[in-house]
């Protein structure tokens, strides 16, 4: 009784099978990473708590309002979306220490030493229920751009490179000088009923 030789399996088609699988995964895949504007919501107000008015000095507050016709009110005047960024930048930075722009606080920031920070300012973003989402995102985008440009300026001056290329510690320091303070207020109705 000799050992019977098992015939070898023909493997020439395994390449084809692998290709089929490969093509299947290639078409079902979506490699695009999701992008978006990251924000943080304020924690919910406890129901039993009485509505508390947080006292914010008027000069520290910039109200950006979008009505149901997607028009933008910044402070107390109508602005175009293109002007908004410069307005906001001027408000946050307050380069000439105007009395009607946010006060600055002297703080000890790592890498920088004692500098004036725009810690006190608040941008209150309010919108109508009828505002279009695209208009809202556009405004959010302009606000983000204002912050990004201010931070970029500082980091270029100090470290000689844009904010995005700094390491974590340095980014934190720059963020301390220009903290992002956007308050997304509770909804109200502006500009006609909807």
């Amino acid at each position: 009784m000799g050992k019977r030789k098992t015939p070898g399996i023909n493997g020439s088609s395994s390449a084809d099978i692998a290709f089929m699988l490969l093509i299947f995964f290639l078409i079902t895949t979506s490699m695009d990473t999701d992008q978006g504007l990251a924000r943080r919501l304020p924690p919910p107000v406890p129901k039993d708590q009485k509505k508390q008015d947080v006292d914010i000095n008027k000069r520290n507050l910039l109200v950006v309002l979008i009505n149901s016709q997607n028009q933008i009110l910044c402070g107390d005047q109508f602005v175009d979306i293109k002007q908004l960024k410069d307005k906001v930048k001027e408000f946050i930075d307050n380069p000439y220490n105007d009395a009607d722009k946010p006060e600055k606080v002297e703080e000890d920031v790592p890498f920088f030493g004692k500098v004036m920070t725009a810690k006190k300012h608040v941008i209150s973003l309010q919108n109508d229920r009828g505002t279009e989402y695209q208009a809202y995102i556009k405004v959010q985008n302009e606000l983000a751009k204002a912050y990004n440009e201010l931070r970029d300026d500082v980091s270029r001056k100090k470290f000689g490179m844009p904010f995005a290329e700094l390491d974590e510690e340095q980014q934190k320091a720059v963020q301390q000088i220009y903290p992002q303070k956007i308050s997304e207020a509770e909804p109200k109705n502006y500009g006609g009923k909807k």
Partner: protein
Amino acid sequence: MGKFVKSEGHEVPELNTSSLPDLVFAFLFFIMMVTSMREVTLMVQFRAPQATELQKLEKKSLVTFIYVGKPNQEYQAKMGTEARLQLNDKFAEVSEIQDYIAQEKSSMKEEDQPFMTVSIKADSETKMGLITDVKQALREAYALKISYSARKAAE
């Protein structure tokens, strides 16, 4: 004098293809690693708004999606043309968000839960009223990290 051998009967050696399956498999595994299959079929019309200051969403496993938009053509007879929410594979009301978030949260590892991000994928024509409701519901559900999904716009 040198002699040029006329290569008669010299055949081109055949390419050895026995390693081809291995190559393809290696490639296949790579694709399988980086792939992320779309788990839900979109039931709403969704065109992301455009923006320029985008941040990438990291760690897919920490991200929960909420779709907002008009129902697709085939659902319009039943659901109307008003913008609706879609959670997972079905239409939902704003009041269902809390349960949905709680459920998603519990399916995550405990140490990951504080880093949970909710990506709001809303159609650019949606009215803010609905978005605001969603935001309020997310606040109530303590899902405070959100991301407004958007496309890169040409500057």
